[in-house]
């Protein structure tokens, strides 16, 4: 094995053998290899008790013993989940193929043949102990990373509007607000937010950093600090995006960028004004002129140079009527790019029908049926982060 040899001085070994001479000579061999913490047992039953009491890192186990033989002891050990990974080295004088196979069937990690050859014995003991240590290190590493990722995930979730906040904003502005957020791994690169700008205006932002995972997630934290630096109050959405773009260009390495939608809904004049930077086409719905008819639904143009790619980027404002009973549906590209085996991805053009279908199933809260039908056709885990936000003005 590569790397410096593991010191065996802090390893504990249990020797189980009914023959005193064997116990002593085995102890002598492994003591010379630096193992000093050694315990003994004289049969399988004593051995099991010694494992629980002594907590060895490895067991050297004889096969033929009174009361309980080595195979039976090993089988009993493996039935206990705590000892599934404990290395058990059989020492056996039985050299038939069948007997040796029996050692592995009983759950043994390896065996050494009697009479014991000191060099081979130490090499096999060392190999098993090193494997155990590596396994332990990896398990500890994995546990630590998972713990840290789940903390980070909680932090990321805290950047997004909570349900209570959604309800508050919805009531204040006479809206229906529903949102869905799912990352493709522990962390993701999507972000969205609601920004009250006085009693009649509400800012809506959705940003999707290229890629996903930890790098993209770090960018959402960067974004969150930048947003507070640029007040939205007295600025057109295009100007605000241009400021955000310049700031992101300063911090993002080449190749990392974000798509974005930033709009301001003005209730006093029933108008949505927005600027976009390459986000998927938002869906705008307006109540039909004829009472009782289905709403007019269309995709909005959201082309624009992605954020953080060039300092010179400029954005364009568009205004659309969004009266009572109208709605806006925003989503990240996972909605249209992720698919399954039977159905391919939804694709941009199918989104209006996808929304109509959702509305047919739940007129007030179509987001849930939309997500149900998305997940029904899509392979999990998602290949990209999914965010979807439904904003409707109450009729």
């Amino acid at each position, binding site marked *: 094995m590569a790397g410096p040899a593991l010191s065996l001085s802090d390893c504990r070994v249990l020797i189980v053998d009914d023959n005193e001479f064997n116990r002593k000579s085995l102890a002598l061999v492994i003591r010379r290899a630096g193992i000093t913490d050694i315990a003994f047992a004289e049969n399988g039953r004593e051995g099991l008790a010694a494992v629980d009491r002594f907590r060895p890192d490895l067991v050297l186990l004889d096969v033929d013993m009174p009361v309980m033989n080595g195979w039976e002891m090993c089988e009993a050990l493996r039935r206990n989940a705590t000892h599934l990974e404990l290395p058990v080295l059989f020492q056996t004088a039985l050299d038939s193929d069948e007997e040796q196979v029996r050692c592995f069937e009983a759950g043994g990690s390896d065996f050494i043949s009697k009479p014991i050859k000191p060099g081979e014995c130490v090499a096999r003991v060392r190999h098993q102990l090193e494997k155990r240590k590596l396994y332990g290190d990896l398990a500890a590493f994995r546990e630590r990373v998972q713990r840290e990722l789940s903390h980070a995930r909680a932090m990321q979730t805290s950047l997004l509007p909570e349900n209570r906040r959604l309800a508050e904003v919805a009531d204040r502005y006479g809206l229906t607000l529903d949102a869905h957020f799912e990352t493709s791994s522990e962390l993701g690169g999507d972000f969205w937010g609601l920004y009250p700008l006085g009693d009649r205006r509400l800012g809506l932002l959705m940003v999707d950093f*290229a*890629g*996903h995972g930890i790098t993209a997630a770090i960018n959402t934290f960067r974004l969150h600090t930048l947003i507070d630096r640029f007040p939205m109050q007295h600025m057109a959405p295009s100007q605000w995006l241009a400021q955000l773009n310049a700031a992101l260009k300063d911090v993002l390495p080449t190749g990392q960028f974000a798509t974005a939608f930033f709009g301001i809904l003005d209730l006093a004049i029933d108008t949505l004004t927005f600027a976009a930077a390459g986000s998927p086409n938002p869906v705008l719905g307006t109540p039909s002129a004829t009472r009782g008819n289905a709403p007019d639904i269309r995709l909005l143009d959201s*082309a624009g*140079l*992605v954020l953080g790619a060039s300092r010179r980027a400029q954005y364009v404002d568009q205004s659309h009527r969004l009266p009572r009973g109208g709605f806006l549906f925003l989503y990240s*590209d996972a909605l249209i*790019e992720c698919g399954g085996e039977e159905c391919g991805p939804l*694709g*941009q053009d199918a989104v209006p029908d996808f929304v109509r279908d959702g509305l047919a199933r739940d007129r007030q809260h179509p987001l849930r049926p939309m997500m149900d039908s998305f997940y029904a056709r899509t392979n999990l885990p998602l290949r990209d982060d999914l965010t979807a936000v439904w904003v409707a003005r109450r009729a």
Partner: protein
Amino acid sequence: MDFKTTNTGDATEVRLAGRLEFTDHDKIPGIIEMLDPMAQTGRRRLVLDMSALEFIDSAGLGMLLILQEEAENHEIKMVVRGPAGDVRRSIELARLSEIITIEP
């Protein structure tokens, strides 16, 4: 994503096929490595032929931006040629034509 390279006169042409996405990050260094020998042998144009590319995601667009910058650093002109279908749509939506030369 797979790519094939041919050298013609003053240009190196890289023909991309399949899907260019998040999981292809390790293939970009293979294209960047060609820039040094190109600059040394006086080939000043890098043409990315995308007519056989079926799909590009946002990470793939990011790779184009990286290639563009690397090419500029080598004083090589990068051209994206023939994106079609969804690929063309994605490139247009992200307005990459403001930074990268796109030819039909």
